[in-house]
């Protein structure tokens, strides 16, 4: 059984013009001790999804349907105080910008001790030892616990955020674009720290990212989101080598190859649909080079074969589509409305 299974989750932002369906039917699962990559372009709902699982949405955000079953309990059905018990102890979070995620006027030690003592129930001495141990684990000198966040570099702040996230031995860590704000070399270092700790501590992790290279480097499984929906998911190798959804095919060509093979990068033209009034058919149809009439009229159902899930009407023609998708001309021919 999975540690976390998200079933048809819907998250809406209430606006004056009506609800914006930021997440509109997301389904995926995370097994204990594995890393799931949650990938998609800006505005596809992946960060919202991460925050919804934590149960800390912005004021206008509401979970409008679906379930989030974590360690056998549906988080959506819990009361706020029950959810608060789980937060950070079983389920923690690494934010995108560690810059603002740390309190600027408190030393790192105070921020570590706060979590370890208030949430972990440790005595001060034990908490101090644990804080030093956590800093060593992420490759920071415990002396730096006496520093303020602004005295840290971006990479160090992100390491400190990881140390904070691991403080109470959670079962699952959600990392929201943890390396996006860092330069490439530091990205690699931070990813290595995360991967190393994940396997040593047998953590499960959701790695939210827009970067296919990060997914290929760090993840076991991947879920590809488009316009609030998970359009394809499965083991990383399987999905990256034999993508079934045209959007995934496009994404794999839109990023430099992880192993440094220089192919031509091909953009996916256009931008995601307005989630205030999402289209009735497949949400990717307007940008898809293989869209047919049916795609525009009816949303494709999710089909699972083995461990590989996809929501595309033409999934059975995937080998042929992949061949066509490899050619830049195919994508250049799409003129989005």
């Amino acid at each position, binding site marked *: 059984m999975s540690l976390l299974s998200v079933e048809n989750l819907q998250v809406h932002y209430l606006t004056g013009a009506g609800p914006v369906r930021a997440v509109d039917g997301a389904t995926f699962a995370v097994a204990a001790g594995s890393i799931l990559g949650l990938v998609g372009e800006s505005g596809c709902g992946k960060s919202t999804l991460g925050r919804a699982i934590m149960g800390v949405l912005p004021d206008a955000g509401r979970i409008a349907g679906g379930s989030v079953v974590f360690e056998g309990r549906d988080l959506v059905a819990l009361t706020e105080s029950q959810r608060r018990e789980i937060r950070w102890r079983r389920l923690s979070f690494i934010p995108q910008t560690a810059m603002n995620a740390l309190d600027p006027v*408190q030393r790192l030690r105070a921020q570590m001790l706060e979590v370890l003592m208030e949430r972990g129930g440790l005595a001060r001495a034990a908490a101090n030892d644990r804080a030093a141990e956590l800093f060593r684990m992420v490759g920071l000198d415990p002396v730096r616990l006496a520093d303020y966040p602004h005295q840290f570099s971006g990479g160090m702040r992100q390491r400190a955020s990881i140390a*904070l996230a691991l403080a109470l031995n959670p079962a699952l860590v959600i990392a929201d674009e943890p390396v996006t704000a860092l330069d490439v070399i530091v990205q690699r270092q931070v990813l290595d720290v995360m991967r190393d700790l994940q396997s040593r501590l047998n953590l499960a992790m959701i790695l939210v990212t827009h970067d296919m290279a990060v997914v290929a480097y760090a993840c076991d499984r991947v879920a590809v989101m488009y316009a609030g929906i998970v359009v394809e998911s499965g083991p990383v190798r399987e999905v990256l080598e034999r993508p079934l959804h045209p959007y995934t095919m496009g994404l794999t060509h839109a990023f430099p190859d992880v192993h440094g093979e220089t192919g031509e990068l091909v953009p996916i033209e256009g931008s995601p649909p307005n989630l205030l009034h999402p289209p009735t058919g497949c949400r990717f149809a307007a940008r898809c080079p293989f869209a047919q009439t049916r795609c525009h009229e009816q949303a494709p159902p999710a089909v699972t074969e083995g461990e590989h899930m996809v929501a595309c009407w033409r999934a059975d023609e995937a080998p042929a589509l992949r061949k066509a998708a490899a050619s830049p001309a195919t994508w250049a021919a799409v003129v989005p409305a």
Partner: protein
Amino acid sequence: MSRSGFLRLVAERLGFLVLTVWITTTVTFLLFRLMPGDPTLAYLSPTFNEETRTALLRSFGLDKPLWEQYLIYMGNLLQGDLGTSFLQRVPVSQLLADALPNTIILTLVALSIAYAFGIVAGAFLAFQRGRGIEGFAIPAALATRSAPEFWLGMLLLAGLAFQLGWFPTGGAVPPGSNLGGVVDRLTSPEFWRHLFLPALTLVLYLQGLPLLLMRATMLEVMNDEFIVMARMKGLSRWSIVMRHAARNALLPVVTAFALGLGASVGGNVVVETVFAWPGVGRVLVQAVQGADYPVAQGAFILISVVLATMNTVADLLYAALDPRVSVGARR
């Protein structure tokens, strides 16, 4: 912040303070000597003959060239000698030393209450954002903040002193009794009864700024990523609000407090006059009315020194409270 970095900052700000005080005292010196009108006329009777007049001018040193007068003035200032009052024939420094504690007590009491109330109410209102209470509380805070002090003071006087007779109408002690030393005043219930109305007027007048400032910064801080993270950590509401949000939102309010303290010493003129409170403001008003130039000059100097000092304190407080200030470049 590192200790040596902070000490260096203190030394630097103290240097600026000395410079500021020197400039203001110099400007005050020039102001009083270049003003139209002859200060000696207030002191000298027109019935004096020319000879007596010249002799008196010489005794004040007013026959010497300006630069020499300036040097004497600065020398006296450094020794704490502010001259002698024309009207009361006592040293100005003594007049001010008597009045200053009253002003400081009034200001500190009023400002502390106003800020304690403003901070708590402002933080509370930040949490009530968009609810009905906002529609009442914010206009109320704004209205009392905008109402002229003398008008507020007179309303309170009319209601609580004249109509109901709960409080004395003015002064710091009952007529005829002696003011006594600072300790005597602070332990005397009569003194506090006299303090009540002027302090209340000031509290009403001063509470708006910390209240609105606290509310605004609190709303801003509550949207910060580290507050979202504090919620994700499952911290108690108390920890989130007090340790993270209020701690960060307080920074500008603390600065405003120190500045307000400095400004109030000079700015209490209106309230001290309405309630006949024997403070620096009232001394200044009486000196101006009576053309008592040495006293007016001394009061100006005192007020500007206090103001400059409190500005320095505000600077240093901010540096002590916010680790990001001034250390960035020094590390």
